[in-house]
């Protein structure tokens, strides 16, 4: 029986509407940094004094439950660095990120120990890289790749692992008869789908997708995008979709942030940004859409 909304306490209502991820002032510098680039607003992301590259500069945003957030920007704008920081592939220079489901929902995950960060990665996040080689062990079986994520989250029953991996691979249209084949024998699109099923293995509340359709041909792109939409609809997973392709963003994202030189230059509803871009860079981006 469903509980009428009015009976819910204030607290639980808050919990329902509060974002699952809050990122504030995420900054990532490659290089030492100097007084100049730490204290001035730079025109570009390269410091003229010390040569430090500020890949992400004070990036802040929120992500709601089951929402898809698009991140667009040209090459080198810091989109990938941002998701890699969120997935702990790279260490942030400063800033905080709070996952509502982690601890009391007030803990900065960047301050956690490496061991704890592994835990967050394994239990609460999934990542799909542009290059399947980064996310998959090409010499292991596809089910083994999915198993890795399940084992990380504490599943040690081979039968159950196989059941779950066949279910997941089936969901991404990899035939069960090929579940024990190595991804290196798969096409690019199939490899990408194996990666997606691996990322989904633990039902993570948050999925990070980094340029997942880049390099795939159009029909395969469409299939992968379709899959992502289905997953979002059925499983209510929140996602951050990084892409330089506005078509992908338009199709998937509810809200979008636009990045340039490491900074967020514009954010809002995707339709709004595409119909009525405010920032000159966004305007350029939208108008160069074929």
């Amino acid at each position: 029986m469903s509980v009428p909304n009015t009976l819910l306490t204030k607290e639980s209502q808050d919990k329902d509407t509060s974002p699952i991820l809050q990122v504030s002032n995420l900054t990532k510098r490659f290089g030492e940094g100097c007084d100049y680039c730490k204290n001035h607003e730079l025109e570009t992301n390269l410091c003229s004094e010390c040569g430090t590259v500020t890949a992400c500069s004070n990036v802040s945003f929120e992500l709601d439950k089951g929402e898809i957030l698009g991140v667009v920007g040209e090459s080198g704008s810091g989109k990938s660095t941002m998701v890699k920081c969120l997935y702990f592939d790279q260490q942030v220079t400063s800033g905080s990120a709070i996952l509502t489901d982690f601890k009391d929902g007030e803990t900065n995950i960047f301050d956690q120990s490496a061991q704890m960060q592994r835990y967050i990665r394994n239990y609460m996040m999934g990542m799909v890289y542009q290059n399947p080689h980064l996310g998959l062990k090409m010499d292991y079986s596809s089910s083994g790749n999915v198993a890795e994520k399940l084992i990380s989250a504490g599943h040690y029953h081979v039968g159950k692992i196989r059941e779950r991996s066949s279910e997941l691979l089936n969901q991404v249209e990899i035939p069960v008869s090929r579940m024990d084949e190595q991804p290196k024998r798969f096409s690019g699109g199939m490899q990408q789908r194996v990666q997606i099923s691996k990322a989904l293995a633990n039902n993570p509340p948050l999925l990070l997708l980094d340029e997942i359709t880049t390099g795939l041909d159009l029909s395969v792109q469409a299939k992968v995008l379709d899959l992502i939409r289905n997953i979002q609809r059925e499983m209510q997973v929140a996602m951050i979709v990084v892409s330089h392709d506005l078509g992908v963003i338009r199709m998937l994202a509810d809200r979008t942030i636009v990045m340039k030189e490491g900074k967020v230059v514009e954010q809002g509803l995707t339709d709004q940004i595409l119909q009525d871009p405010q920032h000159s860079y966004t305007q350029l981006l939208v108008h160069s859409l074929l």
Partner: protein
Amino acid sequence: MPVQNNFEMSEYNFAFLDEGSKREIRRTILKGIAIPGYQVPFASRELPIARGWGTGGLQLTLSLLGRQDCLKVIDQGHDDSVNAVSIRKLAKTSSGIETTTDTVEASVIQTRHRIPEEKLRDDQILVLQVPEPEPMRRVEARETQTERLHAEKEYSSIWVRLYEDIVRWGEITIGADYPCMVHHRYIFNPSPIPRYDVEKLHQADGLYLFGAGREKKIYAVPPYTDVEPLQFEDYLFEVEEFNEESCRLCGSTSTFLDEIYDSSTGDKYYQCSDTGYCSKQQTERKVKANVRT
């Protein structure tokens, strides 16, 4: 042929190594005991045998020996294999202490690839020679990465390796040197002892020390520590079975048996791998050795 000079032991320190080296090794041992299963790096010394031939074990043994100690050295269970004999001789000539082939008499036992049949007591130390101390080397070639994996207790990759074995072969194919979790923290290689011996490490009375001379690592399993071989809930760890075969010399059915083929007839025999225990059994049971000529 040049005449080999006599080896003047009086010119050497007690138990070959200098006291400074021994002290460093003992300190490393203490750290290893304090953190069960953690591989403590140490400065592996030069010895009269080549690295990879038991130098890790030998350095542990030499550092542990005192004048009251009694040493036993075995190689895959045998007291009389070339390597065991050479190591025992070096320890004996350089320290003058007693040596034995009887597990019960020994206070320090150096071994390669076996744990003796007789249960280790709390006043005994077993020193194991280790060729590859890193369990994660099976899945990760870089030392910087394996150190990080241990630090973060990130062991999913070795579990996936076991999973792959099951997918491909229907069982886990690691025989000797079966990776185990010690004290619920570190996964370690128990050195290439058979699976049969792995269970002896769990909640043991004695102290187990592991020395890898070539890889410059020392680690330990202290007494009364949990040692759990990696196993899936539905694919359990299994030890070797001998299908009711018995030792042809002492008739034992409850020991780890070596399989031996007669090269002329092609016949297959079984006999105890632990020769010290076997000869004791023979005298006890007064079984006449039935060795075929």
